[in-house]
């Protein structure tokens, strides 16, 4: 066990009545890291965040902050003593206070003369120094979001919790702001944990991401590994686009598919002659006019720089291919394709 972890969850479970929302969940986060819990709604990710914050009491397990237990089934350190900051989905800005007063709200233990400079410092960081005397309702959604971040960071919390912080913003702003906020957090050397259902947000913000499903973390990894080396069908399906192409294991480490033979690491329990599903990302299939391998275009989605083609192979199986957008083909047309695959990910048929 890593004893330098700032945040550590050990076998945490939470149930409401018979409903188990979080099951036996463990994770660690080192100081200065930004972690993320990614999952569909109802997977229990927000509950984990509320457990860390101390808004709810856990049913089993232990939560440690800075090496000290803050929550067990028998003990719960009050939220206000945990030295955490939180950014809420609805921002939860105080409507009766100005931007300045909102950010200053948590600084009641700081010496009075230091409060003003601290508030202005953070407002500078989030680029809202000019709006200090405005009220929350006078700000745009993105500005309110930045005030919420500044307010949470002002008392220099040990850990910052962000609950779906960008879900109320439009997609353009969401991407820009998530990068901005990441820079703010890194500049303050803050440790943070983010909860979201949006993988783009997770990729843009987090150093490490845990994909959650049915109250459990399926995989805790970097964004790259989640995309290219998912450890389960759920992660493969939830993160990124892709299809599963069936193939037959013809010898140890070799699979034959409709697109030809592939070499790679296969699950241990797979024997020769068994059928497996190979994960194919849209960028694993490359357009190549010279290729003998032909596929029919079923759908196309124009995405600006690229076009995402849905292709039907001769066997009837469908795959996705991301092609630079100057290769503009018509529906029904046949195009040549080639596999360009770095990591063969195979799942056993169950």
């Amino acid at each position, binding site marked *: 066990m890593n004893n330098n972890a700032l945040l550590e969850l050990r076998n945490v479970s939470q149930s409401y009545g018979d409903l188990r929302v979080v099951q036996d969940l463990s994770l660690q986060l080192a100081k200065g890291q930004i972690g993320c819990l990614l999952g569909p709604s109802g997977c229990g990710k927000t509950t984990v965040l509320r457990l860390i*914050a*101390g*808004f709810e009491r856990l049913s089993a397990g232990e939560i440690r902050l800075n090496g000290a237990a803050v929550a067990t089934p028998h003990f719960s350190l*009050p*939220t*206000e*003593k*945990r030295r*955490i*900051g*939180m950014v*809420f*989905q*609805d921002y*939860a800005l*105080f*409507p*009766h206070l100005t931007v300045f007063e909102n950010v200053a*709200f*948590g600084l*009641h*233990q700081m010496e009075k003369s230091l409060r003003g400079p601290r508030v202005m410092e953070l407002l500078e960081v989030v680029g809202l120094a000019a709006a200090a005397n405005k009220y929350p309702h006078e700000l745009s959604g993105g500005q309110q979001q930045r005030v919420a971040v500044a*307010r*949470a960071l002002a*008392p220099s*919390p040990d850990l910052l*919790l962000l609950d779906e912080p960008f879900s109320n913003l439009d997609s353009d702003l969401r991407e820009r702001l998530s990068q901005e906020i990441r820079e703010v957090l890194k500049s303050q050397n803050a440790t943070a944990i983010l909860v979201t259902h949006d993988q783009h947000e997770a990729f843009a913000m987090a150093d490490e991401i845990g994909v959650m499903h049915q109250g459990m973390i399926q995989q805790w990894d970097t964004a790259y590994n989640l995309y290219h080396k998912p450890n389960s069908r759920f992660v493969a399906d939830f993160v990124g686009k892709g299809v599963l192409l069936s193939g037959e294991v013809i010898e140890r480490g070799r699979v034959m598919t409709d697109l030809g033979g592939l070499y790679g690491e296969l699950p241990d329990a797979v024997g020769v002659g068994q059928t497996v599903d190979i994960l194919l990302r849209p960028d694993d299939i490359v357009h190549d006019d010279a290729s003998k391998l032909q596929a029919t275009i079923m759908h196309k989605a124009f995405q600006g720089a690229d076009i995402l083609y849905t292709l039907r192979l001769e066997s009837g199986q469908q795959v996705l291919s991301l092609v630079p957008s100057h290769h503009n083909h018509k529906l029904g047309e046949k195009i040549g394709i080639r596999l360009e695959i770095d990591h063969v990910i195979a799942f056993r048929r169950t």
Partner: protein
Amino acid sequence: MTKAPKLSAFVLSLPAIYKDRWRLVALVFATLVLIPVLVVISSFFHPEKEVWQHLYEHVLGDLLLNTLWLVLGVGASTLLLGVSLGWLTAVCQFPGRRILSWALLLPIAIPAYVTAFVFIGLLDFTGPLQGWLREAFGSSDWFPRIRSTGGVILVMSLALYPYVYLLARNAFATQGKRALEAAQALGHSRTSGFFRVALPMARPWIVGGLMLALMETLADFGTVSVFNYDTFTTAIYKTWFGMFSLDAASQLASLLVIIVFVLLILEQLSRSRMRYTQAGRHQETGRIKLKGMTAWGATLFAVTVVSIAFIVPLMQLLIWAANVFADDFDSRYLGFLQHTLMLAGIAAVITAVGALLLSYAARRNTDSLTRTCVRIATIGYALPGTVLAVGVFVAIAWVDRTLLQVLQPIMQIEAGMLLQGSLLIMLVAYMARFMAVGFNPVDSAMQRLPLSLDDVSRTLGVSSLTMLRRVHAPILRGGMVTALILVFVDVMKEMPITLMTRPFGWDTLAVRIFEMTSEGEWERAALPAVTLVLVGLLPIIFLSRHGNVNE
């Protein structure tokens, strides 16, 4: 289908109440409303033969007919006035629109019973108008009698149309123009667009406003007394205080409650259909510009309504009040005023505090039990004051008797009344009647205080009392002030509860008006009436300055 499981869930969750004090709060306030209603309704199921015989033979037919005419007449004319004025001020542009759209709300400041006696004083045979007509033309026999069914309907419609007007205006302002444009884009003319799209879309709001106006009509006691027009409310009063038959009064009240419940159900249904299809502000530039005669016609229409419903009555009251000021402004008047202010003050404070507790209960618990309790606790606006007076009185009289039986052997008290004859009956009835008036502003302030604000305060190291002081109090203050003002004004104007349950010597301005008008002394009712109107203007001015007169 849905009713049965709801009820069983309600009953099953009863034991859970004791674990949660906020739910208990909600239950207590619901009980305060529920008990008088149940007391009254139970008398419907235990009819006393002789009482019914008498009621059936002598009064019931007239009461039902009178009530029917009143509801039909007031319903039709408030609809006509409210919808047309609402459409004109919300969607059209004509000279004076901005001021008129506000001025059209002013009649709400004059209690209907005040408009009633002013109109009779002005328009009756002995009044100045008919006197002038006789002088000018020799006869005024052709002039319609004001003391008639038509007269009652006219007065009530002028006092109550603002309910329909306000809701219709809001509905049209948020979606009227847009609905019309959509219809025009599909090839409809403006007129057909109005009737086929804009009006149907606004129907839930209009029906909601209409139901409020009709509830007030059924609850009205003062106006119909002035006109000697017998309805259930006056019959309840007369059987109780004239024939001293509380049983008969309860029987009549139970019938009235049943009629009111029909309206209440219709109102709740229309409320659940109120959905704004599009949020955001109505744009000033998008108005339909009325031209020439049409524009001035609209102005004239609105000015006429404001004049007849507000300016003329207020002027006449001021003239009368000035005439009698030297005689009537005495220590007795100051006594009425003092009682009125004290009662309204106490009632406003306890109702606003009750509304605050109820709103907190609703914030903490979103389960069906709490929601049902909050609904019941705020349903009193539909219950006529006469019904609540009877119900609360009977319930508290029972408590009195029980207390006496228990206490007499121990404490050697003489037989008598403990709670009856105290202010308690009155205050409980006021609170039940006006809880919704206090609850709505407090609860809409509570919407600005989601639970996440508590959470965020705690993450910032601020909890319990400090949080109440730094977060809750400043956010809820505005709503509380509004609740206090609204309840205060409503209690000041309230007539039947005050009249029927006041302890000896607690005469208020409204009681004084009732007494003077029942003797036809219009002038001598003017000074207290002017006082009520001026105080009644406060919330309109206050709320419009704070920009939420629309709520």
